């Protein structure tokens, strides 16, 4: 192939790396009012009174808004296709505040300093309630986090908000207890993952203004322009046609910007005051007042017969939705499809959770979206099972690994794994790590031990039967092309990848195409970039749109060159006749003729396609971690990480590799460094980069990534996805490596030195 499989630099690299204006903050209109949010110091309280008279007296303060000023229509901030699975449980401002940091009042001023001054003089009287801070006591707690009667579910998700149950899910296939009894080996453990924070380097930020048609224009660092427009319409109680959402270049997302955040507050101010306004979250606000991964406590049991077959997978979780139900149900259910099918030879499966409201910051979407959480206990338990059985951890996995054409107890009827070079990936990873050639546990020096650990992972590619993308490609009047997409490149290079796929069909170089993205007034609908969907879903739509445009162009050339369509050879820019007439014509010559009434049939040529998939083909990854453990302090140092990914056809190898490296290191952060700690009264103590330690370049060890390329029959050119699967192996692979190194069986994240040290002491 000409473009697919080639490592192009990202089309916007030069501009971005020269520091030119590109991000939301670089584009704020002059004289935009500055917004600051007064936030709750209490984890659960009812506002009895807000007195902001003193704030309004400060010169430069434009307005203060409270819960009394906002529309009383509940909505969800979750970026999901309508009808959203997440409960409508939020207001722009509510009389009840549900976590420390929840919004109490919106302060609008001429500049930041004045707005902050105004925040300081607002007097709020609260009725403070006993907060719900422990998932174990959340259900039927005397405090109801969402006592309101106007909370709406679009579909049944097992929610009982009056009992603090946001939603619940259970799937049981087969007889768990009977099958466990019949097993020769059973392992059981409780694992806990934390509500880690995505920590995109660019915090949440939005500016809004009113355009010449009296419409609201919302420019925001978002992954979901169309969902956001719909949410804004509901929250502000105005028609969506009155709203335009524009996403400029964004500084990272990792799922955090799949949930609206700063947008509602800023849009409300501009709509109310009809003046431009801007809201930029501080790092503290970004980490404390947005959405995180969901914390879950997992009780897992695995049973195997002595022939090495895993007969039972029993996973029961208690999940922390936090204060709002954003992505609460879907992150849990997504985890099922992306973990359990790995091992499909057994007879019984249970996958179950109550997802409870608490007075913590709400959970949301974070790269991996439930799969990372589910694979953590599953892969740790598989390693534990292998040890118990005296089997090599990889051998046990290979014996139980799903194969192409096979189904799973949790697949839909008729659903099978359609592609994947799973065993090949495992073999390759073994070779990279020299798994068979060396011990998996060794003494490095007097005080350090080394260990190897392994984990496997699936993910999905898009949301099956739900998310649908449209792509439009125009032949412009100068003979070049413009591709229009509502997907949102957040730095991954998805615009470049879409162009590679479209240019593969058209035949032209990338230089002859422009990609215009994420402006709801201009581009066709796309759910946005999340769920590892852009290359697979939007990319396939891009290929189809390019095919339609190409056939229209060829037909038009045939008319202009007076030959049959089959006698046209077209390379994307130039058409040549093949009937011996030896005529040529370029798109630059053709296109101007199509937009004046001189030619045979004026018609600007456009290719358009809409595509969604019946399935969400899983990419696959093998991760092998090599760590060193200081047996005197418990300090774990990652040395090397060996990874092999099967993401189907690779469109851009360099960008795919960086996706993998970046995902692995985010996973290492979750595994080893990123601790989420609440005080006893519900203050998030780890809400900045001083206390929430994402990995630096000295904390990662060396990352080695390779690929095997299967061909996914449903995706354009055989593509699947890469964005999320790559974060899923780090935690369990590191856990296994620590276990092998020193015998410490860690069950909670992050695996910091204190925990390793205590586990070592306990073993002694």
């Amino acid at each position, binding site marked *: 192939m000409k473009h697919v499989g080639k490592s192009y630099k990202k089309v916007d*690299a030069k501009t971005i790396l*020269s*520091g030119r204006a590109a991000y939301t903050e670089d584009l704020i209109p002059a004289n935009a009012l500055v917004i600051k949010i007064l936030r709750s110091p209490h984890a659960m309280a009812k506002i009895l009174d807000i007195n902001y008279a003193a704030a309004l007296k400060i010169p430069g303060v434009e307005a203060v808004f409270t819960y009394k000023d906002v529309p009383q229509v509940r909505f969800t901030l979750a970026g999901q296709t309508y009808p959203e699975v997440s409960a409508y449980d939020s207001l722009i401002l509510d009389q009840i505040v549900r976590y420390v940091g929840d919004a109490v009042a919106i302060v609008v001023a001429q500049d930041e300093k004045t707005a902050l001054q105004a925040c300081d003089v607002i007097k709020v009287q609260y009725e403070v309630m006993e907060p719900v801070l422990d998932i174990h006591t959340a259900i039927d707690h005397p405090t109801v986090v969402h006592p309101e009667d106007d909370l709406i579910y679009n579909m049944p998700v097992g929610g009982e908000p009056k009992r603090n149950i946001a939603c619940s899910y259970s799937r049981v296939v087969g007889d768990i207890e009977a099958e466990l009894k019949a097993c020769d080996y059973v392992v059981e453990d409780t694992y806990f993952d934390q509500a880690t924070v995505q920590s995109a380097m660019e915090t949440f930020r939005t500016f809004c203004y009113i355009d010449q048609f009296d419409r609201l224009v919302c420019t925001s660092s978002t992954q979901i322009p169309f969902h956001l427009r719909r949410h804004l319409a509901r929250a502000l109680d105005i028609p969506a046609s009155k709203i335009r959402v524009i996403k400029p270049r964004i500084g*990272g997302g990792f799922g955090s910007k799949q949930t609206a955040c700063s947008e509602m507050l800023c849009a409300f101010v501009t709509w109310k005051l009809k003046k431009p306004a801007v809201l930029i979250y501080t790092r503290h606000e970004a980490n404390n007042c947005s959405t995180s991964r969901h914390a879950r406590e997992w009780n897992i049991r695995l049973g195997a017969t002595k022939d090495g077959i895993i007969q039972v997978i029993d996973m029961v979780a208690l999940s922390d939705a936090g204060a709002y139900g954003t992505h609460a149900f879907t992150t849990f259910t997504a985890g099922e499809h992306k973990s359990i099918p790995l091992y499909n030879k057994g007879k019984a499966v249970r996958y179950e959770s109550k997802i409870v409201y608490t007075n913590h910051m709400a959970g949301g979407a974070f790269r991996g979206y439930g799969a990372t959480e589910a694979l953590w206990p599953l892969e740790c338990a598989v390693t534990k099972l292998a040890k118990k059985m005296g089997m090599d951890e990889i051998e046990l996995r290979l014996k139980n690994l799903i194969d192409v054409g096979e189904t799973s107890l949790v697949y839909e009827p008729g659903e099978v794994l359609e592609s994947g070079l799973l065993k090949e990936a495992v073999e390759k990873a073994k070779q990279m790590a020299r798994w068979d050639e060396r011990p998996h546990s060794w003494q490095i020096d007097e005080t350090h031990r080394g260990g190897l650990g392994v984990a496997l992972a699936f993910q999905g590619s898009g949301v099956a039967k739900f998310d649908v993308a449209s792509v439009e490609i125009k032949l412009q009047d100068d003979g070049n092309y413009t591709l229009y997409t509502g997907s949102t490149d957040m*730095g991954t290079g998805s615009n470049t990848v879409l162009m590679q796929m479209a240019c593969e069909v058209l035949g032209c170089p990338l230089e002859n195409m422009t990609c215009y993205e994420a402006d709801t007034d201009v581009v066709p609908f796309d759910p946005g970039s999340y769920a590892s969907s852009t290359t697979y879903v939007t990319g396939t739509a891009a290929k189809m749109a390019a095919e339609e445009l190409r056939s229209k162009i060829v037909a038009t050339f045939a008319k202009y060159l007076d030959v049959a369509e089959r006698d046209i050879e077209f390379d994307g820019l130039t058409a040549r006749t093949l009937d011996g007439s030896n005529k040529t014509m370029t798109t630059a010559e053709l296109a101007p003729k199509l937009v004046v009434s001189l030619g045979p049939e004026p018609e600007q040529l456009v290719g358009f396609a809409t595509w969604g998939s019946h399935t969400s083909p899983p990419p696959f990854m093998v991760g092998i971690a090599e760590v060193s453990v200081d047996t005197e302090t418990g300090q774990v140092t990652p040395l090397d990480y060996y990874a092999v990914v099967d993401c189907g056809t690779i469109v851009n190898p360099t960008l795919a590799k960086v996706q993998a490296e970046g995902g692995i290191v985010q996973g290492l952060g979750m595994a080893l460094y990123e601790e989420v700690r609440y005080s006893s009264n519900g203050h998030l103590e780890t809400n900045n980069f001083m206390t929430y330690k994402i990995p630096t370049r000295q904390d*990662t060890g060396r990352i080695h990534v390779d690929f095997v390329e299967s061909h996914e029959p449903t995706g354009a050119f055989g593509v699947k996805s890469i964005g999320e699967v790559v974060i899923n192996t780090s935690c369990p692979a590191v856990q296994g490596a620590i276990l092998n190194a020193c015998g410490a069986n860690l069950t909670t994240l992050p695996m910091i030195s204190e925990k390793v040290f205590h586990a070592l002491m306990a073993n002694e």
Partner: protein
Amino acid sequence: MDVQLKINGKVTKVSIEPDEMLIKTLRREGFYSVRCGCDTMNCGLCTVWIDGDTILSCSYPTFRAVGHEITTLEGLAEEAAILGDCLASEGADQCGYCTTGMMMSAMAVRRKYENPTEEEIRDYLVGNLCRCTGYESHMRGIVKYLEVMKSQEVAP
């Protein structure tokens, strides 16, 4: 208060608040390569040079810069383009938000060490956080850039 600043070799008169940090002044003057990623001096996104040394402009009062040479990425455009190209060829730009600050440290490392080892580069750039890349592509890009600069015999 009105002060004179020398930014990228050019003397400019600017009006600042007494407690204003340099990042705010620079961004207001249109130097958008300087970005803010945290409130706690942890991320390194706002890295610029004062008299050739890297500093965090988020916590450097503007008045302190009076009489000193301030350099941002825009002032090193030619060299930044070479480094940028080396990084882009490794896909190391990703979201790009932290990259310009990191590039200021990378261009400084070439001036601090004659032939920096990977260990020295990692050590010098440890304060420049990145959430996208996992850092490996940064290293590949920087090593490439150092080779290019050497082959072109550009003096630090």
